[in-house]
């Protein structure tokens, strides 16, 4: 049975993310994103698809504030990212959970420590989050690998640890770059259910993927990128 996502309004005044005529280039190179305009209404669930090199990762980088646009307006939680002061970045980043394609787990920390990192940085005590982190790790199938270090994990296990780290703080916005690329179909469905559950709790979710079976498994809007342009926005078939 297809999991149901939270139905967010088609447009909203208080969109979590809004792009308006955004272009982006690296250094003096040509634009990798051109005239991108879209919005992620608060509490929505959307997919971002497109072939490799279409600019999906660059678009996500703009959302999680790793990059600034070359032109246009990017609004995040109602704030123009061009005017966000450096000192305000940590507070905004705490509201965003990011799942990277290359996981970005810290090799010297155990899986448990990696997943607990956002909570630890937020100042929570180990006693307060210990049970929650352990429960989440069990949910993503890493209950018996909590003390392992990332270098000893398979690609799929690392991906699940990265997902757990992104969702552990119950972020307002979750962005995921190919989050199910390294796991088997059963685990992919299980992880998708996790994103859906998070969405039901109010988190805005954007999943970048070129796995069409994953995209089609939910009745969620799809943003399609091709050669740096957001060519169409359509509901999943």
């Amino acid at each position, binding site marked *: 049975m297809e999991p149901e996502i939270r139905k967010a309004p088609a447009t909203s005044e208080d969109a979590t993310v809004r792009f308006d005529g955004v272009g982006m280039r690296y250094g003096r190179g040509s634009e990798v994103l051109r005239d991108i305009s879209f919005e992620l209404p608060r509490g929505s669930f959307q997919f971002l698809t497109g072939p490799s090199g279409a600019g999906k990762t660059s678009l996500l980088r703009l959302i999680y504030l790793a990059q600034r646009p070359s032109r246009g307006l990017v609004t995040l939680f109602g704030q123009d990212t061009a005017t966000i002061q*450096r*000192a305000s970045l940590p507070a905004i980043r705490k509201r965003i959970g990011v799942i990277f394609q290359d996981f970005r*787990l810290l090799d010297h920390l155990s899986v448990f420590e990696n997943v607990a990192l956002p909570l630890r*940085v937020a100042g929570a005590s*180990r006693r307060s989050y*210990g049970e929650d982190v352990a429960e989440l790790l069990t949910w993503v199938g890493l209950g018996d690998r909590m003390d392992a270090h990332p270098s000893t994990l398979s690609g799929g296990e690392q991906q699940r640890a990265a997902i757990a*780290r992104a969702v552990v703080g119950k972020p307002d916005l979750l962005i995921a770059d190919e989050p199910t690329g390294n796991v088997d179909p059963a685990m992919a469905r299980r992880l998708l259910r996790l994103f859906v559950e998070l969405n039901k709790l109010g988190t805005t979710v954007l999943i970048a993927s070129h796995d069409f079976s994953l995209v089609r498994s939910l009745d969620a809007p799809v943003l399609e990128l091709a050669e740096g342009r957001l060519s169409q926005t359509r509901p999943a078939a």
Partner: protein
Amino acid sequence: MSENTRRGAAPLLPPDAGRDRPLFAVAAILVFLACLSALGALGAWRAAEGWTDQLSAEMTVQILPEAGRDADTDAADAVARVQAVPGVIAARAASREEAEALLQPWIGEAGLPEDFPAPRIIAVRLDPGAPAEVETVRAALGDAEYEALVDGHRMWTDAVERAAAAVRYFALTLVVVLTIAAGAVVAFAARASLAARWDVADALHLVGAPDQYVAELFQQRFLSLGLKAGFAGAACAGLAALILAYVGGQAGALFFLPTLKLGWGALLIPPAAALASGLVAAFAARRAVFTALARRWE
């Protein structure tokens, strides 16, 4: 309660012993040199104080022999006049034998001829609280029938003070230069350490850690390293100072300083240097990391 909640949190910066070892050695050597410089400055300070106190607490009166006069009688008269001056504790005329002993380095052991007009020397000990002025002593001898030269040792006192000040300021400059060098070395090492661990800084930033959080991780690491290196360098410097003091005491003189008497205050220098090493390292690391983070994320 699970094992993971009981266990302490792992350090967010991975152990970096391999990279830290050369820095530890350099920092320890800099603290060692800074400590010795500071001890040298303190030694010069105290020695200069001792010598100038000694010189200013004494005065010398020379009674020049004249044909037809009895030098010993003149010397006795001069002693009586000088002793009467306020601010003089005692005056004593040196015998001819003592005068010869003083001249021995120049005339050898053969002694003076009987008829050689050796001046009579009067050693005057002054009240350290209110010493008599040279002019007052000179005035007391002004109407005497013999010629008397009063020497307040001013020339020597000034020379000793100048020499001691030069040594002192040189040593203090060395301490400052070594401190700056230590700071620069640690800042360089902190940047290298950060460059090697951008993955940690990036991961922390992306989960919402402010620059201060990241900087404090490096600051704590370098504070610890600076303290350890500081204590190692300071301990070696303390040991070296003890050996030098012992050798100096045995030989009677070390370089141009007779014996380095540092006093109890010197005991504070090694721990203070070690503490300063930790603080300089922590401050330098913090500044370096803040600067690097600002450049990367601007």
